[in-house]
């Protein structure tokens, strides 16, 4: 049976970007359907009735929801090419831990940076940098979190690089100053075609953030 892979997508979403990178790494043909989140399609509501969110991966008509679950699914189904999770159970547990850490810390705190001001923003910036430094510690001297090649944690974290410029402008700080290793890592990843074609332009993401701030009345 011919494989049918569809991704319900939204260009700046870090969660959707993760799936795009995974699909590209594995060379999987996919139909990308851009969603208008103010006017969600019937397909989206049918395929993710619980959360009504993107990304939704639809494989031969069956939906898979939640980006990290989707990346694991892709890794399990298309297991013969570019494995993302290591084969050793302990290394897998470590990779899952750090991917979960990215979800808990980078996304939530990053959001606070562009949605808050004053003391709350200052605290968010501090925690953000601390979290990035912990990730730098995990990266160590490896070229990628996955070792010699892109792995699960690289895929989990990379999309947020597209948002760094927006965080920096909104928070009035420079990430590279504090976390040069991480920026070097991101630039190294961008050399790969699968990453370069999946990550949106940072300035475009900043424009989107400004639109959101206006729409939500955030200064």
């Amino acid at each position: 049976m011919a494989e049918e892979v569809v991704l319900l997508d939204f260009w700046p979403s870090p969660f959707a970007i993760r799936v795009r990178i995974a699909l590209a790494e594995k060379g999987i043909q996919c139909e990308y359907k851009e969603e208008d989140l103010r006017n969600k399609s019937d397909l989206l509501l049918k395929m993710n009735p619980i959360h009504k969110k993107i990304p939704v991966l639809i494989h031969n008509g069956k939906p898979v929801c939640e980006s990290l679950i989707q990346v694991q699914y892709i890794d399990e189904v298309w297991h013969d090419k570019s494995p993302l999770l290591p084969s050793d159970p302990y290394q897998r547990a470590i990779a899952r831990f750090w991917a979960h850490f990215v979800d808990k810390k980078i996304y939530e705190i990053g959001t606070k940076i562009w949605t808050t001001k004053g003391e709350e923003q200052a605290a968010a910036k501090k925690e953000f940098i601390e979290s990035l430094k912990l990730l730098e510690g995990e990266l160590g001297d490896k070229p990628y979190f996955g070792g010699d090649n892109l792995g699960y944690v690289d895929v989990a974290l990379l999309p947020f690089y597209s948002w760094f410029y927006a965080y920096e402008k909104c928070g009035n700080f420079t990430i590279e100053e504090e976390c040069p290793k991480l920026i070097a890592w991101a630039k190294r990843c961008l050399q790969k075609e699968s990453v370069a074609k999946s990550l949106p332009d940072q300035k475009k993401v900043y424009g989107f953030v400004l639109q959101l701030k206006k729409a939500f009345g955030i200064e």
Partner: protein
Amino acid sequence: MAEEVKLFGTWGSPFSRRVEIALELKGVPFEYIEENVSDHKLKSPLLLKYNPIHKKVPVLLHNGKPILESLIILEYIDETWKQNPILPQDPHERALARFWAKFIDDKVNPPVWRALLGSGDEREKAMEEVKEGLETLERVLNGKKFFGGETIGMLDIAANFIAFWLRVVQEFSGLEFLTPDKCPALTKWCDEFVSCDVVKEHLPPREKLIAFTKNWLSGNGWTD
């Protein structure tokens, strides 16, 4: 090499108990170390060494290597000890088990505590969230004996909170989250689950949990 398996846990935590159930199911002998989690100063140096970032239980130590986060530990256990698998083989089924386990932790567990701690509108809203979550799980169960089918799987283990903690809170607080008329299959599942051999030794003592929760609540200001 002899296996060395240790679990740093705490008697009242559903997350900690999940790991106990999985190890029991797989027949893996382990050493249990009770951590005092209410007083940070009393957390053991070993816990702080193995989980420096979050300083939380459960922590599974396998031949000296720490594994953190209950759902991650469950997957690790399943991959390391192959007997009595708790995750399905099929990738789509696995994705579903992971999705619903996350749903329980993100959408069902937190509003139970919000309902307990809150009052008025906030409590109402939290109650609605829990009830909706439970009704969704009723549909997921779809008349099966367990989420895992004939025997318990990862999702059943992840749902331990509902089978025990949620029902204990319901009984002493009078907040009716789970009712047999709205969720008949789920209600039956709760009874089946807590009676399983591999589960019943790994539930907190009921009265002790009630006393502990009430004590914690009065420290936080229980209002009615």
